[in-house]
């Protein structure tokens, strides 16, 4: 199993750089290889997930200064890896049609696979410094992907993306060095169950918030919507913003005891973020920006689960990561189909698309329901458990802020669906997307539904993970 662990990271990371070579042979081969690498990564991760609860699966190469290159399998990592490799796989399959008429395709596939690989490296890392290294690699990949179109505006937004996230990362590095000099180690296994001081915790939180686009760093995420929809879908659903939530869960949930005041501050900030971004989503008219703001508000719910301080809420947060990834990937890919067929992103110019694009509309609706939290979709259970866990901690202010946030979610998604799919037809005869693309979005939408119907499986996994791993707040 140790070998599987290292392969799950190395195959996509190194495989990414073989794609330019395959491209020299044939373009189709390159596309096939991209899918194959993504599929292998998914399969390896699924295999790892089966033995996630057995102890001591670890791979390490000793580095000087305690910067060990170490990977460790734990239930949380395996879960995150499976979720993001599954969504990435669907996105890569969808890309084959979607991206086929643009330039820079080789670079695109290389970066997508590298992105996925560095995500795997990040989730399995057992060393804070290596976590940071993979973190920066994802930043690099997102820079190239957001700047996929090489217009003036695209490149500017790409630079904004990398500068904001790297600024956060550098601040986080200060926190990591702080921890290193206090504890003389960065191995998470060795740091387990220690107290963390407020200062390094805040510094690391800075990095997490910049990556997850929580206030005050939220502006880069909607701006990154200039990229092709597959990229934004990847950023929002599978990898980039989830990194922040994952790192929070891992560092503050399962390694350190965190001070209670710190957790409370996180809840307040994310609560405000949920409101602000929900409001922004209500007034935006660009379809991708609306979904982007929706991501920001949903991420706040994940933080609500992770930071509330009860095991139940933590399990809910983990579930929420899964449900949101599936639903948001589907929403963005739908937006990609719509954008490609109508040649606009402005929802005021759309309308009545349900007649011409019924399958896309169906997928969009199912995924929206999941994000809104309507039963029996997966999103409902995740939201329910998060709220239940949060209320268990006997605080009323935070859950009420988030309750308003949840209502806003329903409002802006209904508005979006209405404007795009219902009402009068404004754009003439856009046809349905290509079969692969529609199949991808329908697949994701139904996965969301199935996960809701069979909630007991993911729930018991999340619950056990939380029982075993969650450290809780500081006793002091």
């Amino acid at each position: 199993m140790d070998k599987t662990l290292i392969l799950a990271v190395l195959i996509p990371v190194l495989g990414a750089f073989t794609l330019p070579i395959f491209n020299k042979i044939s373009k189709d081969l390159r596309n096939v290889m991209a899918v194959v690498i993504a599929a292998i990564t998914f399969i390896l991760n699924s295999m790892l997930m089966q033995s996630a609860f057995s102890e001591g699966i670890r791979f390490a190469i000793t580095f000087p200064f305690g910067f060990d290159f170490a990977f460790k399998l734990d239930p949380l990592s395996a879960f995150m890896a499976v979720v993001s490799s599954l969504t990435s796989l669907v996105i890569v399959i969808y890309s084959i049609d979607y991206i086929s008429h643009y330039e820079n395709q080789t670079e695109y596939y290389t970066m997508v696979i590298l992105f996925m690989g560095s995500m795997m490296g990040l989730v399995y890392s057992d060393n804070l410094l290596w976590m940071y290294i993979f973190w920066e690699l994802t930043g690099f990949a997102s820079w190239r992907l957001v700047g996929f179109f090489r217009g003036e505006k695209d490149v500017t937004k790409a630079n904004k993306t990398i500068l904001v996230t790297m600024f956060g990362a550098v601040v986080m590095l200060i926190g990591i060095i702080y921890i290193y000099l206090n504890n003389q180690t960065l191995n998470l296994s060795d740091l387990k169950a220690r107290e963390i001081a407020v200062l390094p915790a805040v510094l690391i939180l800075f990095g997490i918030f910049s990556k997850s686009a929580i206030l005050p760093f939220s502006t880069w995420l909607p701006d990154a919507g200039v990229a092709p929809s597959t990229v934004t879908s990847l950023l929002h659903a599978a990898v980039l913003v989830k990194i922040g939530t994952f790192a929070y869960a891992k560092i503050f949930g399962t390694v350190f005891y965190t001070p209670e005041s710190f957790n409370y501050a996180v809840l307040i900030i994310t609560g405000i973020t949920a409101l602000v971004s929900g409001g922004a989503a209500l007034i935006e008219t660009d379809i991708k920006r609306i979904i982007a703001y929706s991501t920001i508000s949903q991420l706040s719910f994940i933080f609500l689960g992770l930071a509330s301080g009860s095991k139940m809420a933590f399990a809910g947060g983990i579930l929420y990561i899964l449900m949101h990834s599936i639903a948001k990937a589907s929403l963005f890919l739908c937006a990609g189909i719509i954008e490609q067929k109508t040649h606009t992103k402005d929802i005021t110019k759309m309308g009545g698309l349900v007649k011409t694009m019924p399958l896309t509309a169906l997928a969009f609706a199912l995924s929206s329901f999941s994000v809104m939290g309507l039963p029996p979709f997966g999103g409902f259970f995740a939201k329910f458990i998060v709220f239940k866990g949060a209320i268990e901690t006997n605080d009323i202010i935070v859950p009420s802020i988030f309750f308003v946030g949840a209502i806003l979610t329903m409002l802006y998604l209904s508005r979006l669906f209405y404007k795009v799919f219902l009402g009068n037809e404004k754009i003439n005869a856009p046809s349905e997307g290509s079969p692969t693309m529609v199949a991808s979005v329908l697949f994701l939408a139904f996965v969301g539904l199935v996960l809701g119907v069979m909630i007991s499986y993911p729930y018991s996994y999340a619950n056990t993970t939380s029982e075993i791993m969650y450290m809780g707040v500081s006793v002091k």
Partner: protein
Amino acid sequence: MVTDFLSYSLIPLCSALAIPFISRKSRRITEILANVTLLSGLINVGYIILHYIIKMDYSSFTFDAFTLLMIFTIYLVGLAVVFFSTYYEVENDTNSNSYYSLILISVSAMCSLVMSRDFFTLYIFMEAISVCSFALITSSNSKNSIEASIKYFFLTFPASVLIIFGISILMLNYGSFDFDTIKFTNINFLTVIALSMIIIGFLIKSGIAPFHFWTPDVYQGSYSPISAYLAGIVTKIGGIYAIIKISQILYNSGATYKISALLLFTGMLSVLIGAFGAMVQKDFKRMLAYSSISQMGYIILATATFSPLGIFAAVFHLVNHATFKTVLFLNSACVEKNTGTTNMEELKGLEKKMPYTSWTSVIALLSTAGVPPLSGFWSKVLIIIALWQSGNKYYAVIALIASILTLAYFMIMQKKVFFGKLSEKLTEVKEAKFQLLIPVITISIIIILSGIFFNRVYFYLEKIIM
């Protein structure tokens, strides 16, 4: 002087002397001789170093690792520049006899400088390097380059005066210039005065703020491959190296009379002035020159801690700087050759036309900005840790945050020069010749590999401190 490595400085010297005679027969032979001399040296020293890095068995390791590493770096950059010049068609622009001779002489002088074990020898070879540089800057015989050379001469000669003054005081005080003699005797106030004068002299030579005014003009004005040579290695060996040596001397002595604090301050000043200066530049080479000032600041910060880890980090960053700055300057030379300008306002969208140049400069700039897992990241992290451990927490934090400035100005550069829509004037531009890309690609690979196999590089570099 240590004599173990004497052949590394004598062989290039002999080649340099032979070149004027054989060049009468054929220009080709000149080029071949220059390349072969440096290549054989590089293979030799590279083999020794790689042998230890790969085997990781240091039981038979007896010689001075620091000197050897410096020689490796000198040869690497020297060969890259000479090879590049061979296919850059320097014979159209310059008098190629003296061009290759001068490069070889300065390689020889630099090797001798890193072998020296006393201040006087150090000073002599520093002057030899400077004289070669004055001549090399003017290679292209253009008005700009002569202006740059004159500036370089007038703005850095006070350094020589200061250094010779400092050395005289040392002589009066100890009766010796030897590093070890000074290191193992008690350092008194007079020594500190002398060392301070020497340090200021070398700070001027290496273009650290507030003495940085000559660097942008010189790097911009000089002949393009020579800019890479100067920025990559010459001003570093002729300046920073000596400061690292002095730092090693002061490391053992308790009384440093605030030299550390002053160095930290100038280092920080350089980091910031260089970074902010680079952001507003319109010229590619000038921007790289400011970036160089900023990176030198990091090295000074590391040396100023006077701790083993700091010296280690400084040496590592010096080597890394030699690699990535050479790549960037050589790329700027390619851009200048193929488009006829280095003005970033006129350049745009070269990525399509020059993909390899674009990608190698991305690698080099990310390494400069300290993005993992490239080699520049490790040296920067070590600098930060060294600063923090020596109690200069705030400098560590500012230095780390400043690396985001580095990333920012490089993003601006990359956006202007390589990304974006191709401007109409540049539709005829082609990728640089394959041969011109070889040095750049090779060094980029070194950047990536030394970053990924950092643990092995570390075990080698550890010998420097011990």
